[in-house]
């Protein structure tokens, strides 16, 4: 089941700071909802453990995250895939762009995801809603953390 999401956030922080944070596993771990572990295993590769709950299904996703098309500090592509065991799998990616604005930085993202197995069976409405909510939560967390840093 394919999902697509887009969004943008205005952050009152300089673009370099945002870029740094986007490459900081600690920062990402704080902001990814349900993220229990996130560690760098290579230059552009991280290992992740995320607990996700979609409707009645709760699963621990073990997976890898890759950073690509790095264009500091203008943006990158972040992608990953996770195995949720009996719940199924999820994989996807997002193009993240950072633009300088008068107040700081405009972050825009375009994400797409593929899910399969029991998760997909839950149906588009439930899954798409949860995915959008999770993405929003991440960027809200990220914006809040950035604002904190700026403050």
């Amino acid at each position, binding site marked *: 089941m394919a999902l697509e999401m887009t969004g943008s956030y205005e952050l009152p922080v300089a673009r370099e700071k945002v870029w740094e944070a986007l490459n900081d596993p600690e920062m990402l771990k704080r902001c990814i909802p349900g993220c229990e572990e996130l560690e760098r295993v290579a230059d552009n590769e991280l290992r992740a453990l995320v607990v996700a709950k979609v409707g009645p299904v709760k699963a621990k996703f073990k997976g890898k995250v890759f950073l690509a098309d790095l264009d500091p500090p203008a943006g990158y592509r972040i992608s990953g895939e996770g195995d949720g065991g009996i719940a199924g799998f999820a994989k996807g990616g997002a193009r993240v762009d950072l633009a300088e604005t008068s107040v700081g930085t405009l972050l825009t993202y375009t994400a797409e995801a593929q899910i399969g*197995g029991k998760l997909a*069976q839950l*149906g588009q409405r439930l899954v798409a809603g949860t995915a959008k909510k999770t993405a929003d939560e991440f960027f809200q967390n990220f914006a809040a953390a950035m604002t904190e840093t700026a403050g």
Partner: protein
Amino acid sequence: MNASTVTPIGAPVRRKEDKRFITGKGRYTDDLSRPGQAHAYFLRSPYAHARIRTIDTAAAAEMPGVVGVLTGRDLAQDGLGGLICGWMINSKDGSPMRAGAHPALAVDTVRYVGDHVAVVIAETLNLAKDAAAALAVEYEVLPAVPDLAVAQAQGAAQIHEAAPNNTVFEWELGDRAAVEAAFAQAAHVTEIDIVNNRLAPNPMEPRAAIGEYDAGDEAYTLWTTSQNPHVARLVLSAFVGLAPENKLRVIAPDVGGGFGSKIFIYAEETVCAWAAKKVGRPVKWTCERGEAFLCDAHGRDHVTKGRLALDAQGKILGFQVKTIANMGAYLSTFASCVPTYLYATLLSGQYAIPAIYCEVDAVYTNTAPVDAYRGAGRPEATFLVERIVDKAARELGIDPAEMRRRNFITAFPHQTPVIMCYDAGDYAASLDKALEMADYAGFPARRAEAERRGKLRGIGLSNYIEACGIAPSAAVGSLGAGVGLWESAEVRVNPTGNVEVLTGSHSHGQGHETTFAQLVSARLGIPIDQVTVIHGDTDKVQFGMGTYGSRSGAVGMSAIVKALDKVEAKAKKIAAHILEASEGDIEFKDGRFSVAGTDRGLAFAEVALNAYVAHKFPTSEIEPGLKEGAFYDPTNFTFPAGCHVCELEVDPETGTTEIVNWIAVDDFGTVINPMIVEGQVHGGIAQGVGQALMERVAYDGEGQLVTGSYMDYQMPRAEDFPAFKVGMTETRCPSNPLGMKGCGEAGAIAAPPAVINALADALGTQDISMPATPAKVWAIAQARVTRQAAE
């Protein structure tokens, strides 16, 4: 016995089995527990197509409560064979169908979402699930082909090495040259493109199984939700190689609906039986509804092009059909016969069509297997025939009822160009009665009235025919069936005169315990409560072929009639000795054996007692006891037919379709219990309307099932229907002793074209696909409004 307590044939007696069903006393497989049983959970593939690189079971095996973790390699090591498809179909060129292997647990490749990767057996279901989460499976994801339209294309991913271009067979039936000649002289040609939507069977009771192994007897017992336990035992013995038949007992206790989906021998039941010995514990599995959507064999899923050649008066000259049938990822037990001999053989419908030619390609896709579902092939044939005839009528400006009348078969027996020889029927009688009950003549006024309310009203006909009473063994054998389709019965008269009837057909909602008992009550003149019907246990009933294809009446009850004939003949002999009369002078009537022309006689129970006491007849001539068995092989299929009329209203603002009137006039031949028959008709119509307006199994481009719950798969509800008006016409079936034809599938066969023809009438277009959801209907209605405004 008092004859007044007898339940005659034709009495709408209440179902004996309902008391236990509606008071919670039914015993379904999931209600049963065996001492020491453990619970199975199947790890299923989340991918539509992938290679299994490794399965690491070590961590799972260490989890709390785990009794065993088994994979396809364990199955293979034990020498168990794969699941089979029992009907051989040859392609046009004579080559046999190209079937890929179908292991109960995947060995190295998974081929649809839900395919069986491993089984975890633990003390409880939740412990099994927890352990399954600890199974580490490394997949290499392969390109998937969930879409039937591209599965045969060059470059499409290959699902089974054995089936190039994912094509299982390219089959044909009929006379191509004769059809081409018919088209050459046609005054009019009507063409239609049809998608017969894929359906999930959704019986109320999901599948379940308990496997048990008795190490002392070295024998297995499998309790399972089967429509045909004997066939399950045969397949598990002869093909899977689990155990010889004398060491395998299969019990199908109360079963809550099947609609075909419980005919087949599935992976889970097979694995539960095998695993019981492996882990030394009874192994129980109950399917969750979500798993049922994934793994119960689906129904229908055809893409068809039809062409009808007609003369200027609307007389059909020839019919040409090309169908692509989706088999899913594996060939299920009877998958190959559904789109061939259960489909193309009915393409003549109720019509005298001189020439028919049909081609069918069966195609693998990365989706759940597709097999028989209520009607199995015959709904697909009827939908095509009744849609194209209706479309032709509209194109030629002939009233659809008149169009049908002009083409009806009126003389019997009638040999169609597609194997079937219809033995009896009166199609005009059904049509006339249905039109009268529907007040067809008054429809234009009702339509005008609806229009004033802003509604679009339509009326649609469906003149279906089906071939039931499956089937004459030699006939199906010559067409590729791996088994004969006779039925068995045993009538055991007990010394006190009550009776046990053992039947090889199986009841899972059809009411056999009542209908079969009714037959025996009427025949032997004993009260219906003195007759018990026993079915569903291979240790009790010697052999049988199960229930599907509306065969239990025409074939199963015919076997009982044969056994009853033998019982009566023997009882007459015994009665003759006791009454000191000649055997030829003994009459049996109203439960009494009497000497013709005298008042000397014996009640049935008295003869029964004498049979077992054996004091009053020479046992050198007559064996003691009163128990007779029979096998009945039908001489022909039976051909139930009828006319359904659907009247509906569309709200062009919302796209909602409301069925406002439904008339069903069916010719089922002799009817034993009209109440049960009417119930079968109601259920069938509801399922058919579900297909027409609501139901569709859908996979996305990656082969993920996106209609895997009742959130996304819509089932019909009581509120979707008006009170059905059910009428009957009767022509006796000459091919079995009771004159029965079968009623189980009729509604599901008749309903879809009646609905879509009515929608076509309401909306003024023939371009309506199933399911005609409100979104689709709204778009058509709005386009119509726009078009009319422009004119």
